[in-house]
């Protein structure tokens, strides 16, 4: 088995830039690939570490498969994209960037709904009043289900998959409430939506993850531990 380990880093955007900065600060400066079209890079002074540039959601999947040794990505993508993530990956460090909350937001004029319990009441007789279940637009169906069904015991709703502009779904009549990601809340406010008091499902940020249990090769374990330690784990 190769002694070289792989750390996956988001392939574009602010997450990529911040991750590269953190690698640099940790003494693991990523050398720009010779060919700009490749998705692999070496690390200066650390021949045993290779960097793979992957899409942020792909990193969650590869962690689940155990095909990479470390990965930097948003916690929301891991919790949503990877079934049973609690048992399949270990969160080694929160990296302090890429902050975003996954929240339950309802129309601002729903003044009778402040909490999940209030929303549960609305959901309970929604069908009697409107002939259909309460609809939730989201791309986070796993997190939504966990928060509604398991944490708050609310069953009577339907998830409408939304792959973009989720905050517009209530006004467009596609859904009644949404579960979406927000960093400042300004998009929600602009769309006349408000976050429920207990509606923060996950306070997400970029994190360093490793597959559980990880490699059993002692040399590779050592390399992983050194890099993780340098990144703040």
């Amino acid at each position, binding site marked *: 088995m190769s002694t070289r380990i792989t750390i996956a880093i988001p392939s574009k955007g602010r997450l990529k830039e911040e991750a590269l900065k953190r690698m640099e600060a940790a003494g693991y400066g990523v050398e720009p690939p010779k060919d700009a079209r490749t998705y692999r890079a070496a690390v200066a002074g650390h021949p045993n570490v290779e960097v793979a540039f992957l899409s942020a959601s792909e990193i969650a999947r590869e962690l689940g498969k155990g095909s990479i040794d470390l990965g930097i990505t948003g916690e929301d993508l891991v919790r949503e994209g990877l079934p049973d993530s609690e048992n399949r990956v270990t969160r080694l460090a929160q990296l302090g960037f890429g902050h975003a909350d996954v929240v339950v937001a309802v*129309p*601002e*004029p*729903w*003044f*009778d709904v*402040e909490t999940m*319990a*209030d929303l549960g*009441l*609305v959901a*309970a*007789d929604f*069908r009697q*009043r*409107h002939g*259909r*279940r309460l609809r939730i637009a989201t791309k986070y*169906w796993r997190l*939504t*289900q966990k928060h*509604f*069904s*398991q944490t708050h*015991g609310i*069953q*009577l*709703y*339907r*998830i409408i998959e939304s792959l973009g502009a989720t905050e517009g779904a*209530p*006004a*467009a*009549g596609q859904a*009644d409430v949404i579960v979406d990601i927000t960093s400042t809340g300004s998009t929600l406010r602009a769309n*006349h939506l408000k976050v429920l008091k207990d509606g923060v499902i996950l306070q997400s940020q970029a994190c360093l993850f490793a597959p559980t249990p990880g490699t059993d090769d002692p040399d590779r374990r050592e390399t992983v531990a050194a890099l993780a330690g340098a990144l703040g784990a």
Partner: protein
Amino acid sequence: MNALRSFSARADIETILAQLGAERLDVPVLQPADPFLDTAGEELRRRIFLSESETGETLCLRPEFTIPVCLHHIGAGESAPRRYGYVGTVFRQRRAGGNEFLQAGIEDIGNTDSAPADARSLADALAFLEALGVSAPTVTTLGDQAVFNAVIAGLGLPQGWAVRLSHAFGDRATLDATLDALAVPPPPPEVPADILEPCEARDRAALVNALSMRLRIAGLENSGGRDADEIADRLIARFDAAEIAPDEKALATLRTFLSISAPLNEAAGALAGFAEAAGLDLSDAIAAFGARATEMEKAGVDTAAISYDAAFGRALDYYTALVYEIATADGLVLAGGGRYDRLLTMLGAGSDVPGVGFSVWLDRVAALTGGDA
């Protein structure tokens, strides 16, 4: 267990179904997923096997039979009552153990004479188990959502309470948590001045106006969702609830009711005694309960051996009255049934169609009887 999968065992079950007077119905293994998710809720999504057709329709492997049988009844445009018998595999995702189970049962759909239909359903379920060779003593527990609803209505609880309690019925932990929560008066919601004023004055018309304005600004006026009237009603109920001290007596009465447990042949009497002591008029619900128990006796059911448990129910909002469960002495459920008068309209029937039915877990029965059912 494999014995049940064999052709001869299935033939036996078909014979039992025929003896019980049910007509055999086959429904496809692959079913549209929406009716299941719509009626049972999104939690089911984790527990069913989902797939998709080429045209994008979400399909699932049937997780149970009641809904497909009802859909068949609606789709066939049946107007006369029918009693459908079925046997086949159902599929449920589980973390451990198998994912497919053999079930059989009878759904009695469209019979408006509910007391004898209920009685026949329970009698058939017991007869089915006996015909399968279950000789060990079983425990039959019976509950009734209609009686619970009558108690809630009789207590005159605020609107929000009734909804919450009715919804928690069937799940003891949720119900107890709800009762505890109701003992603490909730503060009124924090609202802006233009909403607060009509709320405090209980000026419903002004409140509806203010809310309509807010909904218009939010672009939600004609979105087909909640409207100003609904929000106004709930807001006023919230402000009312914050001012009315929780009715300790009503909650205590409810707890007393939930603790009622009696053999079925004594249950109507126990309920009447409770109603009198609590000063509640439950006469309609108790009369229907008693009539059904009498029908069960007529159908040859030993009502002294069935226990009525006031807190027993199913946390699904399509069950409307009778629910029952037949289990082994150590609690393994072998058969379950109930009345679902709300289900067919939920599934698209144009008018109210009553239904009652039961399912038998054949694998569990086979394990119990040594596989030679």
